[in-house]
């Protein structure tokens, strides 16, 4: 009897050690997204933020590069977080929203409508950036199933080592340095870029044979609308004030109608660039695709003064607990801004 117990303990120990070793290997092989392309770190950062937020932004790079939650807090006291990711698709936005509601119930959710032009799964690489950082839940499972391209399989999301195993020959210092802990790369989801590359112009838009926004994309917009309604959340639709990729008037008309039919606020900020105070010769870092920090702060101020002004949001600047948390965020934000500006000068 004693011998059996010892053998069992030994077997369990070996299995445990083996599993732990595999898990450690998996952690090593997964990309860290700490330098260069940092977008892969964005989704998981949300879980590190222990404060609550009255505004949640959900969507793609037109949100996470164009809006600054720190600016919104500093100037208005509004707390917010951008649950953004690169080429975040409508179904991913829905499931990320569903995931967010496990942790908090904001007063307002802002969704950028550009992604509604995508009706089908697009890219495994972008999928991983939007999904790998999610904590495991039914939302993540559903998100994976809705997102997978033909070449992907669910098991590779459960065991990412199956996907990233061939990175073993490409391991870099970051893979070891950030094995257990990663640095924050965003400011409540905002990706800061202080450099400047002026917008010079865009090619003419290509006429489409069919401007109807896809039924799958709109189905997930319906679900976002519904879940916000069920939770007493004010869902606001926006189109960020950047002109490329091209946002067809025919698409815009469909969203205007959708908003009317569902009693939602929708604002297309492209025609409001002047009113916002944007100068696309200095307020963009990539020739007009996204705003830089200067542009993002202008747009954020505009949102604070207009869109968010009558929504009953709380000014938390006098709240000792919350302002203490945000003070740290402000310091981090200003440090990064100074560092980037200093690098640009040199």
């Amino acid at each position: 009897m004693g011998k059996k117990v010892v053998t069992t303990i030994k077997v369990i120990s070996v299995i445990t050690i083996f599993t732990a070793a595999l898990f450690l290997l998996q952690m090593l092989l997964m990309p860290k997204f700490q330098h260069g392309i940092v977008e892969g770190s964005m989704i998981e950062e949300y879980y590190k933020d222990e404060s609550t937020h009255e505004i949640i932004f959900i969507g793609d790079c037109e949100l996470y590069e164009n809006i600054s939650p720190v600016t919104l807090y500093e100037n208005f006291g509004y707390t917010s977080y951008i649950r953004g990711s690169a080429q975040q698709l409508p179904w991913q936005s829905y499931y990320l929203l569903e995931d967010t509601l496990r942790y908090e119930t904001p007063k307002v959710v802002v969704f950028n409508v550009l992604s509604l032009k995508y009706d089908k799964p697009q890219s495994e690489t972008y999928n991983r950036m939007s999904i790998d950082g999610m904590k495991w839940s039914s939302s993540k499972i559903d998100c994976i199933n809705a997102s997978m391209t033909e070449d992907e399989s669910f098991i590779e999301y459960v065991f990412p080592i199956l996907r990233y195993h061939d990175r073993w020959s490409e391991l870099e210092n970051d893979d070891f340095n950030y094995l257990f802990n990663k640095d924050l790369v965003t400011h409540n989801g905002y990706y800061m870029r202080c450099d400047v590359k002026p917008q010079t112009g865009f090619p003419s838009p290509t006429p489409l044979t069919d401007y109807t926004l896809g039924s799958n994309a709109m189905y997930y917009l319906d679900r976002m609308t519904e879940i916000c309604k069920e939770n007493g959340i004010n869902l606001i639709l926006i189109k960020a004030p950047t002109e490329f990729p091209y946002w067809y008037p025919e698409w815009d008309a469909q969203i205007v109608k959708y908003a009317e039919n569902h009693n939602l606020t929708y604002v297309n900020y492209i025609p409001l660039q002047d009113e916002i105070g944007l100068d696309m010769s200095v307020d963009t870092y990539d020739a007009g695709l996204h705003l830089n920090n200067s542009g993002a702060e202008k747009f954020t101020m505009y949102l604070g003064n207009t869109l968010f002004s009558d929504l009953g949001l709380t000014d938390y600047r006098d709240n000792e607990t919350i302002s203490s948390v945000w003070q740290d965020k402000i310091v981090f934000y200003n440090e990064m801004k100074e560092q980037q500006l200093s690098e640009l000068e040199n």
Partner: protein
Amino acid sequence: MKRILTLTVTSVMLFSLITACSSGSNNNTAITAATTGNNEVSETSVDSSDPSAVDTSISEYGYTLNGIKIKPNDNFSDIVDSLGEPDTYFESESCAFQGLDKVYTYGSVTIKTYPKDDIDYVLSIEFKDDITKTDEGIKIGSSSDEITSVYGEPSASNDSSITYTDGNANLNFILTDGKVSYITYTRVE
């Protein structure tokens, strides 16, 4: 003891298998990609950041430019030098730098490309004006009757467009008041 040994050997073999094999899967998390300094802007009206498998099924729909027949999904990296210097060129990074979307203009013809595994593939071919005709002779200003007399029954049509689909390509005629106002060759999504 024998069982433990078996388990350990199995573990080592599995470890070796995982680290040794290369699925050739798209490892395009682009960890090694660096942003370029030349970020001018291109525009695509269809999804250009789609690195899903390139459809190599043969299509008859393509346009002959400078003696070279070009079709959607063609490897443009192979032929771009043969076409000569474009009149204009734009490029833009896609989100998280998953490659550059590019737009080349040769006279009245615009070619847009998308990147996959460091190769540029043809996303679309577009005609800007009525100087250019399709290889079959249709141009901007042609009537819908002229289109169907040349190409036959369309794959799809409505008041504002006529589309022919073959293999991995669409030939699209955008109509305004019954006349062709724009012509595009696009990849089948």
